[in-house]
């Protein structure tokens, strides 16, 4: 008998680890098709309330699972993700499957190609279950900007899962996928990972191909994984990282074995703590969680020292000018001509553009296109866009100086735990400030991880952000493993 009132059903459930599942599939004890079917059952049960999945790719998933089972039966070598059920944020394209980017303007669109990360996951044996809900064009911090309704946080369904990759975070937290992919432009992987109590990775700019990612702000957009533990996230990154000739910004740097790197102890690593992330506006319970995490890192043999990032307070205005300017250009392509929604019966071409975009885009997308167009328009370019790019250099250089002295920097991922649905929807600026600790790494191009770091008294997850210099994901994984191992 329960001693106190409890919710009728808990949505939270931890997936088995990749290694456990893969072992089962190789040995034949688990059939990939049964595993996938089990995930589809769980999705059928939980998704009506959580709204994490927008569409399912069952046929493709089950034929991939059957292929994996056939290889396993013959004793053939299997990829590192053999039979692993994975979900894909709906800003990444899969051939023939809906790709809405959370927007009405892409309703009915069926892309004729696969994103590079999608091909790489399948080549490693992953079973792609379906497409995950997100804020429209990845613009938002709560998933409430999706044209297909908000995602609910599996830990407390009255709260937001964070955004924009809210579906990707919620799906892992509710075990509706073992791992997922999201995208992060100003915090869209790290912040929902924090709100849902899972691991989320922001890879270095250029580390993971964006070919097949619906663009929001191209100098900031990145693709990265979510998983229930650090090692699985490292394994996922190892699969999707690496050079791709289809993405001109993709790096030719070799890809380390991130999972093996994450096994190395954190002892001896130098950790920087920036006071700028621990001041006014930080929820005390979040601060206390991060302090416990820092204590655990000391106990694990890390050295901890203060670092100074004095331009932090300018990061949100810098970010919103750059991101909206780039978005206003990127979203010009949605015009009702080549794909997606076209407003019926317009009198001429210009009216067709206007009506299609008016009816297809939501309020936040319009707000950002207007702000970006304004910031780029004649007479304002120097004052806004150019100024923001100058501050961007100051922010990037101050990180590089800090990383000359430390291997990683740890901060809270978000100033608060998950907030209530509707709490910030009336005030765009309040919503933007939810990204205050994540936009810095976005602007600097460095890598980062969110790792769960305790909970508040109400049981809401606290996330620690571990940042490392460009292409040093290995250091971030080692630090995150140490925090995870401390079971804070």
């Amino acid at each position, binding site marked *: 008998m329960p001693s106190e009132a409890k919710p009728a059903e808990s949505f939270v459930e931890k997936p088995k680890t990749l290694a456990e599942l893969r072992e089962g599939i190789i040995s034949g004890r688990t059939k990939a098709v049964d595993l996938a079917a089990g995930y589809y059952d769980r999705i059928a049960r939980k998704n009506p309330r959580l709204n994490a999945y927008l569409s399912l790719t069952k046929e493709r998933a089950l034929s991939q699972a059957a292929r994996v089972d056939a290889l396993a039966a013959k004793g053939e070598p299997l990829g590192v993700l053999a039979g692993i059920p994975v979900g894909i944020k709906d800003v990444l394209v899969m051939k023939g499957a809906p790709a809405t980017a959370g927007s009405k303007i892409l309703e009915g669109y069926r892309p*004729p190609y696969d994103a590079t990360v999608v091909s790489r996951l399948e080549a490693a044996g992953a079973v792609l279950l379906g497409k995950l809900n997100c804020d429209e064009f990845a613009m938002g911090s709560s998933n409430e900007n999706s044209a297909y309704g908000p995602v609910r946080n599996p830990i407390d369904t009255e709260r937001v899962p964070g955004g924009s990759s809210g579906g990707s975070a919620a799906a892992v937290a509710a075990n509706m996928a073992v791992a997922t992919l999201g995208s992060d432009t100003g915090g869209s992987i790290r912040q929902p990972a924090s709100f849902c109590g899972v691991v989320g990775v922001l890879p270095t700019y250029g580390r993971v191909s964006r070919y097949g990612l619906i663009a929001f702000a191209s100098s900031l957009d990145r693709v990265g994984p979510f998983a229930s533990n650090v090692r699985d996230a490292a394994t996922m990154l190892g699969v999707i990282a690496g050079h791709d000739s289809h993405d*001109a910004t993709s790096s030719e740097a070799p890809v380390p074995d991130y999972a093996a790197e994450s096994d190395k102890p954190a002892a001896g690593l130098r950790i920087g703590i920036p006071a700028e992330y621990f001041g006014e506006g930080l929820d005390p319970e979040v601060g206390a969680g991060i302090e416990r995490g820092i204590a655990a890192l000391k106990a694990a043999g890390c050295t901890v020292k203060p670092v100074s990032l004095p331009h932090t307070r300018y990061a949100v205005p810098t970010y919103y000018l750059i991101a909206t300017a780039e978005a206003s250009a990127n979203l010009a392509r949605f015009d009702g001509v080549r794909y997606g929604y076209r407003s019926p019966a317009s009198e001429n071409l210009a009216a067709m553009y206007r009506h299609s975009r*008016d009816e297809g885009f939501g309020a936040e997308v319009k707000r950002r296109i207007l702000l970006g167009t304004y910031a780029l328009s004649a007479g304002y370019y120097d004052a806004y866009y150019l100024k923001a790019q100058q501050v961007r250099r100051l922010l990037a250089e101050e990180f590089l100086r800090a990383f000359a002295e430390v291997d990683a920097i740890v901060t809270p991922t978000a100033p608060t735990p998950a907030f209530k649905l509707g709490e910030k929807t009336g005030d765009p600026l309040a919503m933007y400030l939810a990204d205050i600790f994540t936009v810095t790494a976005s602007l600097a191009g460095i890598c980062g991880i969110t790792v769960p770091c305790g909970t508040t008294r109400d049981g809401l997850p606290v996330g620690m952000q571990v940042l490392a210099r460009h292409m040093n994901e290995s250091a971030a994984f080692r630090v995150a493993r140490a925090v995870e191992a401390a079971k804070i």
Partner: protein
Amino acid sequence: MTAKVTVRDVEQVAELAHLELGPEETPAMLRDLNAILDYVAELNELDTTGVAPLAQVSELLLEGSGQGALRADAPQPSLDRAAVMPQAPETDQVFFKVPKVIER
């Protein structure tokens, strides 16, 4: 940088962006844009004289890596027309069709 945006500005920017704003949308956008622009004016506190703009971070990353910032500009095959055209709202299978461009 602290100039207030007017209704006329919002309408003009909307026109540039091919966006149509309804009568109830314009005042809300005006209010939000002014609030956001007031906030971003904080950047004026910083003296950025002589700081080179950073358009994207690849230039920081590529120093000493031996990798060029840009790939060679060589023609490559694109997607097959037959796969692309069915996605368009209106085509004749060869060209995209749109409403008339010029009024008589």
